[in-house]
């Protein structure tokens, strides 16, 4: 005599068919980002990554806080970590997304040639301003993800430098700072009273800043 075969019907509950909370939130964020991107491409809106990533991160954070009453959501945490990294990269190292890789040497002799910002993901930027005839004050942003920024300033123009490095060294005139997250603010003689000045804001993720 054989035992009767026990056949168990797979039980399905209504809840098991529902998508997870994290999946729904991720989907909504992707749809919103896609629509914003489309509007940007169609020139309806002008949207910067510097605003999009932090806002998406804030939404993920809010969703996690609300969802914490329904349990753990590892998918949302992963998405949040990913968005945090993108947010930090865009904010601290804007050149990372447009600057490319390699060595770039720029020699500026006229004000019209001077750009507001110079950026690079990996490598060295050399900005030579020694022959620049400055007719008005200028502020320049330089950023490198990993590598070096070297600026040679004009002799006759007072300058100010605000340099930040994630890990590395900053040398401005005769002042130096080094280690983890060093920051150096240098204001040259005559800067406060001069009518024409040069201001340099320099960020490097890992590497060196040198201004002379």
């Amino acid at each position, binding site marked *: 005599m054989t035992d009767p075969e026990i056949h168990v019907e797979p039980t399905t509950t209504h809840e098991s068919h529902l998508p997870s909370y994290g999946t729904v939130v991720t989907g909504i964020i992707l749809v919103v980002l896609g629509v914003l991107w489309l509007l940007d491409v169609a020139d309806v809106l002008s949207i*910067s990554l*510097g*605003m999009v*990533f*932090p*806002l*998406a*991160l*804030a*939404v*993920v*954070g*809010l*969703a*996690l*806080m*609300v*969802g*914490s*009453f*329904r*349990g*753990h*959501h590892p998918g*949302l*945490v992963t998405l*949040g970590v990913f*968005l*945090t990294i993108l*947010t*930090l990269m865009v*904010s*601290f190292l804007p050149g990372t997304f447009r600057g490319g890789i390699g060595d770039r040497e720029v020699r500026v002799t006229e004000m019209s040639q001077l750009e507001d910002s110079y950026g690079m993901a990996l490598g060295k930027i050399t900005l030579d301003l020694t022959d620049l005839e400055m007719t008005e004050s200028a502020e320049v942003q330089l950023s490198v993800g990993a590598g070096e920024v070297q600026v040679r300033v004009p002799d006759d123009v007072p300058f100010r430098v*605000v340099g*930040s*490095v*994630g890990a590395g060294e900053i040398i401005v005139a005769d002042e130096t700072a080094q280690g*983890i*997250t*060093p*920051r150096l603010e240098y204001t040259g003689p005559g800067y406060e009273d001069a009518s024409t000045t040069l201001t340099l804001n320099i*960020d*490097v*993720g890992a590497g060196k800043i040198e201004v002379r």
Partner: protein
Amino acid sequence: MKMHIGSFVTGLVFLAVGVAFALEAAGVWEIRISDLRLIGPLALVLIGVSIIAGAVTRRES
């Protein structure tokens, strides 16, 4: 309904970081690489708060 304190605190951190950098992008204030030195002490405070909150939540439940 039991709250998952780890998710809540992580969400709070993401929200705070997101809002801080969104305001930076809007020009309200400036955040530099050197400000990352604040992460260490802030992380310690947050871990402490989450441990305390987790202990309180367990005791109440």
